[in-house]
């Protein structure tokens, strides 16, 4: 199996999973997902009165024989599920040990792998826009089919992070650009001074089934540097004077909890599934327990 992103053992277990779509697939392309569209499949959906011009092949002759009226048999058309993965590749994601970006890529790889195995279309949208790895980004735009897994992983590995984030703008643009709504997975630390509400709201409004995964570094959850500090923001360059000691750790952790809680409440209110993970946590724990328990996949 390819790549360093996911272990073969994990891949093997991921193969058994299948993305659960709570909404009907809206893709125009036919796939293996149930959709609202009526069309060609074996699953009977409904009858409707025949009007001139309907395909005579779908007439229910048995009903015609009993009622002497023409009814059309409708079948559900199975379509594919577009999965869009919004991957935060800003400068702030490069922090942490292990780096948040690496963790996010692993999650993206796992989600993508599950989707590809289920013949769904996967798009990874790293933001902000960067020219450095344009080729890899293009290769991640619309991937379909198990045969593409290798290239998908390679392209993911080729991604680099840097630059300032604008979460709202990235998510809004992703919502607008998508031809069909589907499953959206947002992988970010959600530490954007401009906030996250507008972006997530845009995705929800576009009809996406949104999954937000907040990835924080262990050092962000419990800083280990004490004393009088001048903190410099890696993205904005803003400076913040802080005097921090062991005795204020609990207060800081409470602040983090408050922040995460606000994010979680925002998500819950909009039907967004929210997950929070530390980049130092076990990937299996998140993928196989949390996401599964939240019925992202089964």
């Amino acid at each position, binding site marked *: 199996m390819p790549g360093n992103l996911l272990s073969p053992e994990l891949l093997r277990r991921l193969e058994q999973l299948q993305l659960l779509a709570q909404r009907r697939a809206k893709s125009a392309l036919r796939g293996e997902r149930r959709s609202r569209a009526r069309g060609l499949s074996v699953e009977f959906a409904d009858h409707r009165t025949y009007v001139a011009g309907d395909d005579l092949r779908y007439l229910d002759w048995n009903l015609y024989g009993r009622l002497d009226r023409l009814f059309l048999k409708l079948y559900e058309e199975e379509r594919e599920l577009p999965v869009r993965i919004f991957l935060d590749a800003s400068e702030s994601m490069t922090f942490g040990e292990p780096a948040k970006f690496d963790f996010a890529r692993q999650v993206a790889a796992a989600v993508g792998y599950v989707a590809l195995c289920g013949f769904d279309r996967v798009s990874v949208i790293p933001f902000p826009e960067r020219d450095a790895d344009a080729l890899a980004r293009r290769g991640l735009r619309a991937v379909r089919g198990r045969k593409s897994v290798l290239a998908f992983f390679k392209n993911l590995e080729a991604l680099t992070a840097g630059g300032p984030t604008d979460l709202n703008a990235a998510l809004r643009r992703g919502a607008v650009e998508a031809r069909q709504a589907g499953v959206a997975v947002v992988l970010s630390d959600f530490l954007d001074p401009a906030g996250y509400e507008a972006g997530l709201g845009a995705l929800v409004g576009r009809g996406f089934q949104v999954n937000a995964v907040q990835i924080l570094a262990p050092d962000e959850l419990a800083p280990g*540097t004490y*004393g009088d*500090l001048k903190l410099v923001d890696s993205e904005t360059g803003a400076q913040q004077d802080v005097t921090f000691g062991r005795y204020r750790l609990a207060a800081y952790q409470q602040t983090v909890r408050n922040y995460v809680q606000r994010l979680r409440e925002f998500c819950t209110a909009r039907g967004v599934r929210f997950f929070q993970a530390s980049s130092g946590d076990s990937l299996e724990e998140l993928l196989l327990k949390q996401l599964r328990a939240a019925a992202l996949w089964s």
Partner: protein
Amino acid sequence: MNFLAPAAFAFAAAIPVVILFYLLKRKRVVKLVSSTLLWQRFLAETQASAPFQRLRHNWLLVLQILLLLLAMLALARPYFAGRATGGRLLVVILDASASMQSRDDEPSRFEKARRAALALVDSLHDNDQMVVLQAAAQTEVKQSPTSSKTALRRALQSCAVTDSPTRLTEAFKLAQPLVRDRTDAEIHLFSDGAVGSLGEFEHEGLNVVFHQFGRRADNRGVVSLDVRANPEDPGQRAVFGGIANAASNSAPAQVELLFDGQLVETRALTLAPRETQPVIFTAAQDRDGVFTLRLAGDDDLPADNEASIVSRMPQPVKVLLVTRGNRFLEKALAAVPAAEVTVVADSVDEAREFDLVVLDDVLPAVWPAGNLLAIRSARTNWVEITGRVEAPAIVDWRNTHPLLRFVTFDNVAVAEALTVKTPSWAVPLVESPATPLILAGEVDRRRVLWLGFDTLQSTWPLRVSFPIFIANAVEWLNPATAGAAQFLVRAGDPLRLPLAAPVGEARVRLPDGAERRLTVDANAREVVFGETARRGVYRLAAGTNEVTFAVNLLDAAETDTTPQPEIRFGRYARAQATTLRPADLELWRWIAAAGLAVLLFEWWFYHKRTA
């Protein structure tokens, strides 16, 4: 509100230091983080949103609270009420006499002694007690027994040197009951040793530590002063002075005589080592005034370089002699210069127009009101006559008394004398084994001289001492003399002015020009003014009466500023001067200073560590 230790406010100087630390900009470590968003939230939540935060366990806080508690505890001055062992009792006797003004120690003996006493205060333990006595002409209790160092320092600071002689006996008598029966009591005498005689003081094993001051005796001073009519020329006044040289080498001295501030005469002397030289000036006097004897030149002790005396114009003495005939007495009285003698056989009134009355073996119908020389005659409430004695032998006479100046009783025999008990108001001048023969004293505000035998029944009138005695008696009984003596006051002794009529108020002008107002009780027959620690001319005005007093040191013991290495008590005891004495010097100030330094260091270190 009062502060026991106001000096502690000096610690307020530490406050700007602390503020300075807060003014100093902290050095911050620059650290690149993914995002400052969480930190901003953190600061906003912990600082701005709530004025109070939950109390967190913080060692710095604990230490600071501990420090505050300790400081508070110390300020509350806790003590044990138990029967703890009492500390030592130290009695400090600070000699404030004139000789302590000597400038051979820097800045003066007194200041140096005061500093030494303050150092002794510093060395006290917490439970030690100290008494501060200032010894001059009078002994003042500046501080009763206390452990409060602040009070003791204040008491010592309030001590002031005077121009008066030392009377250490009084101070020791005051100290003795305090230290009696206490083995841990000490008397610390801070003096130069120029204290005169302590011969009458019984030492009784007192624990005396003598801190001696003074290094040399470069001093000349006026030690005696008197003014009299010139025996050779009644129109002139003779000023007698004694000039002493305390130095161990001969010294020149220039003596000036001034009358009411005007220079009358100057005389140059050469004083031999440790010599007292008499000087006699004669000067005409046309009004009442003040003679001042002044030593020109500089020495260690200026206080004794000047002495003044009030001199009044000589007045004739009016004498009333009541006698049945006594030619010796009449002749002797007539020989007294300036005496106007009236002889009568009996006295019928109070004889107020006479200065003195002589009763020669007569019992008057009305007792005279003035001073009295009574021969074999006395009021029963003055002298209690118990009997007679035949041919009493004269065994002793007090030749130091002014009445017996140049008078001897070597060849005097008395046929018969009254026997009396010495009354409390009089001193016996001439004594026989059975009875005093001559008594002198003051009773009922008048001077009385009493002879217990008839002069005609003795050999005395035939002796040369008789007219001298009569002359002395007239001098002593003359109210003007008594007044003159009254106007010459030793520094530290009170000024006394008898009042003829009651006055409500009296004013005293001090030598430095300051004025004091005294409220006089309506029934008082005397004005007393005690603030005479400084030498000079005092003017007391009471009613229409204005009197000039001359306050002088005139003390040979004070003028002799020779440092005395030991002080004798009574017959056998003596106290050696100590130069060094093991004292318990307190360390708490240094420890407190060290603590402050540690605190500052801790602060600095905290900043260094977190920088």
